[in-house]
């Protein structure tokens, strides 16, 4: 194929080609930016230590043979396995709690014309202005009084404080895009408020709900401070707390294991993420751009 085809595409197939090339040109830089650090972390996870500390070595590939020793350290000498399970469990619970609170709240604020709703909604969002570095202190008193100190359940209780506000607003935004006629039609048909909500509005808002789930899940994997403050036992920690606290000793950083840890937890989540993203694209026939 010569460049003239790119310049003046004539057939539909040529148009497709050109379109694809342009898109790839646009997309590749993003992929490189997003993925390069990950690739680099992956390589580091398999590099032997002496390989890492040489300035003349190529950072992108192995100069000495790759090794599994960092992963061995990760699994046999730290509680990494437990951390992963904790992280997944905590995030799942937090996602559930967030859904059960934020979805109804979002709907109530978006559609039910409650007096004082406006300000309540704003108030909920403004809770983000409270700095976690101050918040964790009174929260630790709450956690202790619930008897949850040093158990990962403490985090299940605390994380919704930062997932609920955003997800509530997110759901508000989504619910607003549901045409009112749909709800009214349902109510006229005798559904009642609850029925209209469950049978008409929710199914249409599945993309929004799934987006909220993704965010709740991701946000709960970002926290470091609360995990540090409330959970000390090694086997109760989630990955974001366990890894930096047990793989950095004094001034010695166990880079190989640190990077390996990041990958093992990040990649499955990214895959999971992608599965959800898939769903909502499926739910919309055709999408915006054809």
């Amino acid at each position, binding site marked *: 194929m010569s460049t003239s085809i790119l310049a003046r595409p004539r057939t539909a197939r040529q148009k497709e080609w050109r379109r694809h090339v342009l898109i790839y040109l646009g997309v590749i830089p993003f992929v490189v930016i997003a993925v390069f650090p990950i690739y680099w972390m992956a390589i580091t996870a398999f590099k032997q230590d002496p390989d*890492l500390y040489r300035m003349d070595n190529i950072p992108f590939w192995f100069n000495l043979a790759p090794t599994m020793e960092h992963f061995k350290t990760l699994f046999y000498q730290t509680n990494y396995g437990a951390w992963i399970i904790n992280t997944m469990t905590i995030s799942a619970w937090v996602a559930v709690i967030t859904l059960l609170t934020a979805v109804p709240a979002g709907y109530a604020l978006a559609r039910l014309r409650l007096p004082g709703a406006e300000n309540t909604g704003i108030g909920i969002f403004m809770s983000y202005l409270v700095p976690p570095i101050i918040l*964790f202190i009174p929260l630790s008193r709450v956690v202790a009084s619930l008897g949850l100190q040093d158990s990962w359940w403490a985090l299940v209780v605390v994380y919704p404080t930062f997932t609920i506000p955003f997800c509530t607003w997110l759901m508000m935004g989504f619910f607003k895009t549901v045409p009112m006629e749909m709800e009214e039609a349902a109510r006229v048909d005798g559904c009642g408020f609850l029925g209209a909500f469950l049978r008409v509005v929710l199914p249409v808002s599945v993309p929004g709900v799934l987006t909220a789930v993704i965010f709740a899940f991701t946000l709960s994997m970002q926290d470091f401070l609360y995990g540090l403050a409330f959970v000390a*036992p*090694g086997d109760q920690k989630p990955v974001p707390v366990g890894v*930096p606290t047990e793989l950095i000793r*004094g001034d*010695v950083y166990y880079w190989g294991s640190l990077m390996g840890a990041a990958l093992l937890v990040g990649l499955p989540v990214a895959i999971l993420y992608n599965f959800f993203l898939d769903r909502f694209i499926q739910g919309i026939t055709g999408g915006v751009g054809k």
Partner: protein
Amino acid sequence: MTPSAHDRARFSVTRRQFVRTTGLGLAGGSLATMLAARQAPAQIKGSNLRILTWSHFIPAYDTWFDKFAADWGEKNGVKVRVDHIPHLEIPARMAAEFAAGAGHDLIFNGATILTRIYFKNLVDLTDIYEQLGKKHGGWIPAAKSPIEVEGRIYAIPLYYILLPMLWRKDLFDQAGLKPPDTWEAARVAARTLKAKGHPTGIQLSHCNDANLNWRSLLFSFGGSETDASGENPTIDSKEMREALKFAKALFDEGMTPEVFSWDDASDNRYLASGIACWIHDAISAYRTTESTNPSVFKNAYVGMEPAGPGGKRVSVAAPNVFMAWKFSKNQAAAKEFLVHLMDNDKQGMIESTGYNMPFLNDTAQKPMPVLGTDPKLQVLQDFPKIVAFFGHPGPYTTQIQEVANLYVLPDIFTRVARGQSVEDTIKWGLGEYQRIFAKHKRA
């Protein structure tokens, strides 16, 4: 015949009571000791002890410590749990535990010493402090500063981490340089070797090593941060000016701008990469080269704290202490454990492969464990005489801790290195110190 460490471990728990009442010493095999041993402290049996400590740079030390604590627990019927987090994160954890009124029984402090902030909520440990002192030849003079408040002791000093000189003998020999025994010699070496592609580096950034290293330099030049009362900043001095001028020269001639981005581990990497001609750092940097760069390991030597122009040597170190919360439901076990731990100070030092520098004079006597036998590390045995902590010659106060947390002193040296005039920088620095000191007086 002195009892073995094992015997001591077995008997120490109850002997404390005995020693207090009868004044008996450690002579083993005495009837008194045997009688004491039969009285197990009933009040701690069946209880829980929770210890929070840091992740030591030597993983083997942590393994030993965990087992040591578990073994003690088993022998005394106490369920012991040890948790590890990085030392920099301990203040946050302490704040949370204090707010919650619950948490661990024993908490470790290292790098950041918060005794004075929390002392009203810490168990008074003066009795066991004095015990241990009597038993083990006394404590080194610098021991009291991080733990004493209003005449009482609120924490037990465990060990401190030194930052000696680590230098590449092969590079020095090749260039015909003398060992870096004085700061001046170190500067000359850096200048000569930088030209050959081997500069030096000391962090000029916000990290703990910067706080330690520049204070060692300043104090060795005869300068100080505060007076002996700890209430008045004294950085506006002739010695400070000399130290700053020296630091500027050292930076310009012997370092690269990389040092502005360094953290605590960067100088370790610098040495491991083979570039550094010398660094002023904990022996962890030297030790890790054994696996990451064996040729550096072979050629690197440990040196005495360099002397300042007046011949003075002061090595500022990072103290590590254990304190016990008053809200702990098991203060008795906490105290027993601390005594047991310090009774086995020498063992601890061995397990740390010589990092943990002792506070107890007995352990500091030559030959010291590990250091006494390693030809390269022997010089560390001379450090206990010259070690000091933040705030020297005054006590380790909360205002000095804040000054350290905000990295004011490293900032002073950074500004001068970047070209700001010594006078202006001292004026700025003094202002920061005074503001911080004033706030603590107000509070």
